[in-house]
């Protein structure tokens, strides 16, 4: 109990999470910690277990063993929506905004889940993101009519709409051109600078170099390396697994 209280200074934590698919170990005893105010990138080659870890964190899959804590609360057995209510915002690798609803409705939906007195809370992060992405809170356009980039941004804004304390993004820049990628990176950096904790699963090393403060490298279901961007990018072993020489 005492250690739980001490670790509530940790935003997100996994304690020896393991998960197997048939004979393949997708997560092998992962101890992963993110502190409040961090902007962490989670990287690794294909099949390293990034997606598995992400879906275990979100509650889409249950780990076979281990524990998950969000702001010191044990959420191992909790369902996805219960974790979200603890202050987690998340987006998917594939775009999953509601195409049949308008932009306005898409952004309003996260609100209805909140208690009444929270609705009026000023959401500076959302306002900033909408401004930077060029989206309008009252846009009646159907989300299905937006471009791919706008849809990705809409999803991030939806996640921000419920005013989360931690944002989990699964490849937010997938399919974006260079300019849009760098815009996304700038927005995430700014949101982080005003206090939002962010974890990004990424593929694109340029994006990681530009955005991340700290990086966790996964390889074969294990944490392979962890450290600052400089440490990781200059790590020879990391270069090897990325180039497939490992």
């Amino acid at each position, binding site marked *: 109990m005492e250690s739980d209280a001490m670790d509530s200074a940790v935003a997100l934590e996994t304690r020896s999470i393991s998960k197997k698919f048939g004979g393949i170990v997708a997560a092998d005893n992962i101890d992963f910690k993110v502190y409040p105010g961090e902007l962490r990138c989670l990287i690794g080659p294909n099949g390293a277990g990034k997606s598995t870890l992400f879906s275990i964190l979100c509650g889409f899959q249950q780990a076979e063993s281990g524990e998950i804590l969000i702001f010191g609360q044990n959420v191992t057995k909790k369902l*996805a929506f219960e974790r979200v209510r603890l202050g987690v915002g998340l987006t998917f690798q594939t775009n999953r905004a509601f195409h*049949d609803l308008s932009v306005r409705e898409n952004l*309003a939906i996260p609100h209805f889940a*909140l208690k009444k007195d929270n609705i009026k809370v000023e959401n500076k992060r959302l306002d900033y993101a909408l401004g930077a992405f060029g989206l309008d809170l009252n846009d009646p356009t159907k989300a299905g009519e937006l471009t791919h980039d706008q849809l990705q941004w809409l999803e991030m804004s939806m996640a921000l709409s419920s005013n989360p304390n931690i944002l989990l993004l699964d490849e937010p820049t997938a399919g974006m051109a260079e300019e849009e990628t760098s815009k996304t990176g700038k927005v995430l950096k700014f949101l982080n600078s005003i206090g939002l904790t962010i974890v990004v699963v990424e593929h694109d090393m340029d994006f990681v170099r530009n955005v991340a403060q700290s990086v966790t490298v996964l390889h074969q279901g294990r944490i392979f390396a962890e450290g600052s961007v400089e440490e990781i990018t200059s790590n020879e072993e990391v270069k090897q697994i990325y180039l497939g020489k490992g």
Partner: protein
Amino acid sequence: MNTALRLISGEGDIGKTGVFWISFLFVVLLFFIYPSQVSAFRASNSAYYLLNIPLGMGMALLWGYCGVLSFGHVAYFGISAYLYGIIAGNLSENSWGPIIGILGGLGGSAIVAAVFGYFVFYARVQKWIIPILTLVFTLLLETFLGQTAGYQWRVGSVLLGGYNGMTGIPSFQLGDYIFQGYSFYYYCLVVVLACYFFLRMTVNSGFGKVTIAIREDELRTETLGYDVRARQCLIFVLSAVLAGISGVLYVQWGNYVTPSQVGLLQAALPVVWAAVGGRTSLLAVAMSTFCLGWITFTLSSQGNQYAMVIIGGVLIVTMLFFPRGIFLMIAEILGRWVSKISKGNT
């Protein structure tokens, strides 16, 4: 007041323009005038087409807005009908009997739907299995009710009646006034309009938006902080209560009910109404329920054996050529027309 207006005339259903609301009021007015032009018998027949509308709209809500197909919603129609018969029948000396019967009938449907919905949605049963489970449930109910012939199957003074059904069910009554013929028609009309406006406000509210979001993408809605299971269960109960309203109106209209009301043939009808009308619009389904009810009733009362074959044909034509529903597609064409004309004028 403004909120109420916004909720009534929102994006959740077809028709928000002035032209629409004027025509809507005009049609409602026609429905109110209609009885003065026809016999009590004709008015009573029209009441029958009206009384199915809540069941149809319940299907639209559940299937069209929430994305869950129930193939056995007539079960809740039947439960309400039988419970009303039992309660009102036993309280036939009491002028409050029918009202207590209505509450008991609808309450019974809601409780059964909540228990059924709990097991289906909280177990996260896959979507395509739900129509089968609901159909099996209503067929079981039919089989059970079918074997209730004989004196041992009675509740108080009311006999369940097996395949011959329950007879002599009291009509609706307020004080000493009994609703029959013309007055029953008006009673149905008011109930149907109240259900429509209630549902239209529901689908335009935040609750309704979340319902549509669940239809679009369950997991995404859950990751925005919603207990999708609870929402689906609630919508299921609400649509069961709507089916129950139709069930109660049905027995108040005909004063009898048989197990075939929860049988396979009847179970298919609400699905047909919703599909032909356009399940994503309450109004389109309300209109198709009325029209298809009228066609079926007219054909079968003329001794035509092929009423159901014709209804089946309409369904096939809809599926092939109007996948989103005939009434909905006509409404959309009309809408474009009207906006073109009004643009041309300005």
